[in-house]
């Protein structure tokens, strides 16, 4: 996988993870272009598209779009399930995750992603093992988490 982007229906970028070295300028250009392309697509269309020399795999969960860029040889369907597993992980961690959880706890979203994917490859597919790693880390925290789920009105359904 070359990169993963999370953005809202309004086109606001919520998370970006790059597994190939690119300049900030290139990253912004790619993001702009892809957000536009994906948002322009209709609901029932297929989840894959060719873009430059990459394949884009995307899926919408409630108000958020999850979008991955993979290489020619990579498997589209398994990438779709990478997205789903990540959503499940977020959901389990935050408890019915919503966009606001990801906005206010963006650093956690990155930490969970790092446990699941590393260097663009799946590191650990077991939900239990990933969450165990994150929870262990949480135990090390001296301060308790501050939940914002109460503010949310657009709940993400985990699909």
């Amino acid at each position: 996988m070359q990169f993963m982007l999370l953005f809202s229906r309004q086109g606001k970028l919520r998370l970006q993870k790059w597994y190939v070295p690119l300049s900030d300028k290139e990253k912004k250009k790619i993001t702009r272009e892809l957000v536009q392309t994906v948002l322009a697509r209709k609901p029932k269309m297929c989840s894959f598209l060719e873009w430059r020399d990459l394949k884009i795999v995307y899926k919408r969960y409630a108000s958020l779009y999850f979008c991955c860029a993979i290489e020619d040889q990579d498997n589209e369907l398994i990438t779709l399930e990478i997205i789903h597993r990540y959503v499940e992980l977020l959901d389990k961690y935050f408890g019915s995750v919503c966009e606001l959880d990801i906005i206010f706890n963006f650093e956690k979203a990155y930490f969970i992603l790092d446990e699941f994917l590393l260097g663009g490859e799946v590191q650990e597919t077991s939900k239990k093992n990933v969450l165990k790693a994150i929870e262990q880390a949480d135990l090390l925290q001296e301060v308790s988490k501050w939940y914002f789920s109460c503010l949310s009105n657009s709940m993400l359904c985990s699909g």
Partner: protein
Amino acid sequence: MPAVSKGDGMRGLAVFISDIRNCKSKEAEIKRINKELANIRSKFKGDKALDGYSKKKYVCKLLFIFLLGHDIDFGHMEAVNLLSSNRYTEKQIGYLFISVLVNSNSELIRLINNAIKNDLASRNPTFMGLALHCIANVGSREMAEAFAGEIPKILVAGDTMDSVKQSAALCLLRLYRTSPDFVPMGDWTSRVVHLLNDQHLGVVTAATSLITTLAQKNPEEFKTSVSLAVSRLSRIVTSASTDLQDYTYYFVPAPWLSVKLLRLLQCYPPPEDAAVRGRLTECLETILNKAQEPPKSKKVQHSNAKNAVLFEAISLIIHHDSEPNLLVRACNQLGQFLQHRETNLRYLALESMCTLASSEFSHEAVKTHIETVINALKTERDVSVRQRAVDLLYAMCDRSNAQQIVAEMLNYLETADYSIREEIVLKVAILAEKYAVDYTWYVDTILNLIRIAGDYVSEEVWYRVIQIVINRDDVQGYAAKTVFEALQAPACHENLVKVGGYILGEFGNLIAGDPRSSPLIQFNLLHSKFHLCSVPTRALLLSTYIKFVNLFPEIKTTIQDVLRSDSQLKNADVELQQRAVEYLRLSTIASTDILATVLEEMPPFPERESSILAKLKKKKGPGTVTDLEEIKKERNSDVNGGTESTPVNASTVSTPSPSADLLGLGAAPLTSSAPPPSSTGSLLVDVFSDSASVVAPLAPGSEDNFARFVCKNNGVLFENQLLQIGLKSEFRQNLGRMFIFYGNKTSTQFLNFTPTLICSDELQSSLNLQTKPVDPTVDGGAQVQQVVNIECISDFMEAPILNIQFRYGGTFQNISVKLPITLNKFFQPTEMASQDFFQRWKQLSNPQQEMQNIFKAKHPMDTEITKAKIIGFGSALLEEVDPNPANFVGAGIIHTKTTQIGCLLRLEPNLQAQMYRLTLRTSKETVSQRLCELLSEQF
């Protein structure tokens, strides 16, 4: 922003994020951010030392601001400080900041690497994990240099925790991708391969990715992974859905790992070991069988995961391309998906079938789905799916279904999405040409293309149709008639006007007999489009008009009137004005004969790879435009040796001689002495060049090609699979100029392209050649031109050698041909009466002045052709001079810088014996000899 006290999470951060979200405008947001940046800056610069918590909070705010899309140019040092904190959360935020805002400051990198080194050595698995994540996320060369040696040790150490092993494996993979040179292969590799047997499936998953990446570059080193991967895969696919516990995903056992293992196996050919091979075949069959079982869950995740494995298995089957049974089963499975209600599956089935179409085992099976695919083209609502259908139709096309597929593609083109029209046009053009049995069909197809999607028809496409029509005389009349009819449409595309103009200009005469397409009607039809066209098209039409002057003398005055009109003669565009002026002048002063010669029908184009194919390849990237035949060709090329490869140590002398370079002369003389190296002249070259240039022996056919140029100045001198060399030259008295065109016929660049002119010492003293070096890179499909200025100093016997050296792909190419600069090129024809001729003939009766040759005719003895050749040779052809009307006599003067030599020639054919007697008389023995030699070869 009120000061925030400790102990309530990063409340300050949450407040800040809320503030940003409440901003009503972009300006307000920027204002709020600037305020925050000022605040953070003052905290960082303040006298009071910040505690870890505050540092963490501010660094996190900076990160948030950066991720919003704003630039951050400070805070790195504070983040680095966090790395050495003993509190996990502070360290974690520090690492996150470093990973996202990668910095190239070397002092900073040193500090970061130090912190990472400490954490890696800490033996605390959570700290080690953070450090490894950071390396994997940054993946810079500096990090590779610092840690690529250390990580393999962590990976294979017996006491490393599983989670750390997983991170280490993928961390190493990332470093190998960016800096393979820093990752040394060694003992660890065999131990990594054995991780495929690890009990922990998470470790196996991470290790498989690493092994796949390493095996692609070092297949030998990781060969043992094949059997391990097969047995692991076998255990997974035969396991019950609950066996693997948390690694079962929606009733599918370890789908991610299965996909990765199947991917790893695609780095290798089918296993040699029969047992392993059998086991793998069993696995693949099991996967295919499972596709037929009823689903264990209605959730889309279940079917996605199951089919992800299935598609990867099919990729492996196609990659092996050795089990006809599996290939056909795969094809049938994909055929089912073609009609699946899930758009995603239809898309993937079309995509996967494209590769299957190129296997000779399954090509026929793929073809049976043609109706479904055509239907997809018509009914799919998603353009990306329709695009896949077009690709598949293209891939499954062969002679048996070409007409149907081309018709369907043309049909679809009428409504196709604008974004894919150009590609469809290219594909139709290629298929129509490739599978044309009947060229009228080809012409119809291309004209249809222009009619339906004229805007998307690139130059390559319409150039190509003209090339083909010119080269195939059986289709010329039909083409003329068809373009004439197509031009009748009130609004036709400019590309049609171009094709129509060109074809009628060449072949309009073939339909002029029909009163409905008489010369005048043809002309009026074209001219009615003239004013609507762009400048290049109008220029082309003007050339058509002058060609009409030659084809149809009866409308000459009409055309002259048009050329003479102010809108042409005084046109603001220089090109149009020049053409109008020149064509008008040409039509006025030239005799019918001259017009006929100047405006002769275009000679056939040399056969070459279609430039359209090159364009499509460029558009889609190499490898995507393969078809069955190309793949077969690739397979055979190993056996046949492909292109000749010569060791590359001959990195070749650059063209101008080094001494000339030092003097800084613009056009350095290009002549260098030819080998053998015993001649003193070549020594200089040897001294200055890195290695001696090895000049290839003359290319086969070079002599024949050379002879063809004795009586003409333009044409193709040399052509092979890669390179075409064309010539165009003009001579006047003792001077000449030759344009050499080097055409790259491939779609790959030629590198170090170095043409060199080689004259022997003797030739150098009588012939002076000057040229400039050409650009050393010649792009695929491109043509470069080289001009050679020629001066004949005294008469000469030999011809210069043109040596071309370049690199194509991995091979070094070295080609030599004889360059047709011959003595007769400096001929000036002389007209004289019969009496004068014989008087001079007698004056040159000295035996050294005469040269005679009696030879057998090599070509049919045609009077007109013979006349043309004598004129082409350069001498005047004197009519009614010889008492025997069957004989030919000629006269002319050879111009050299030092002297002029009068030449007389007489050619006596003997039809019965199929022989000729050629006699040359000149004032110089060597000239008589050389001219006789050259001309004898022509008949």
